[in-house]
């Protein structure tokens, strides 16, 4: 029987006090200004984060030594309103997850909605995953969840 494991998408919303255009620009062209590179990067020190602005483009980090670290591939690119990335969150040889980011006008502000989905595509065996998950898989990471909201 096909396993029906579904893991809920991660959904986050943040409202920022700037225009849609500026929010999109900072998110993509100036990601190095906000991405927590000190803890979430491939290289020890990162000098730049690049979003190649087209479908099929890559998102990657550049180390201070100039080495490139691949992060994701652009699936949809609709500035300044929306982008979708294919993100190999685990490894290059494991199915990518999808990250969609929408930038919505909210009066003078911008509501940024992020959805990170496709968890059920990961791993080799859905049933085994389900067992692991249900028997205490997630007990360690509570501190990391939702502390900014």
């Amino acid at each position, binding site marked *: 029987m096909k396993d029906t494991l579904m893991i809920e998408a991660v959904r986050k919303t943040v409202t*920022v006090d700037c*225009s849609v255009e500026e929010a999109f620009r900072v998110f993509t062209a100036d990601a190095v200004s906000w991405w*927590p590179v000190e803890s979430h990067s*491939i290289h020890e020190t990162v000098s730049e984060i690049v979003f190649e602005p087209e479908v099929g483009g890559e998102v990657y980090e550049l180390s201070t030594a100039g080495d490139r670290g691949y992060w994701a591939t652009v699936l949809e690119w609709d500035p300044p309103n929306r982008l979708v990335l294919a993100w190999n969150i685990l490894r*290059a040889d494991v199915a990518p997850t999808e990250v969609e980011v929408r930038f919505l006008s909210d009066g003078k502000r911008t509501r940024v909605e992020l959805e990170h989905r496709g*968890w*059920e595509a990961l791993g080799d065996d859905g049933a085994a995953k389900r067992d692991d998950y249900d028997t205490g898989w997630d007990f*360690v*990471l509570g501190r990391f969840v939702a502390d*900014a909201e």
Partner: protein
Amino acid sequence: MDALGDRTRRQVFELLRAGPRSVGDLAAGLPVSRPAVSQHLRVLEHAGLVTHRRNGTKHLYEIDTSGVGALRDWVEGFWSEALARFKAAAETKGEPR
């Protein structure tokens, strides 16, 4: 216990995202000793985030892909932190209204 609450452990985890590594390989890329890396790997393995296998005389460590639920929770926390920082950056760098 908080497996990814330590900066060096997060770095170990990030390095393993690029593929399986030995303790020596990991230690070479980090400003900590091999025994310290081993200790971090034990914590990550105990949390189910990392697994290891023997390859000849080497132990290779890799991300445990069965750990999707924990990984999803980790990513959720990551985006919370990242978007809070994005908000601060956008409002600082955003054009004056």
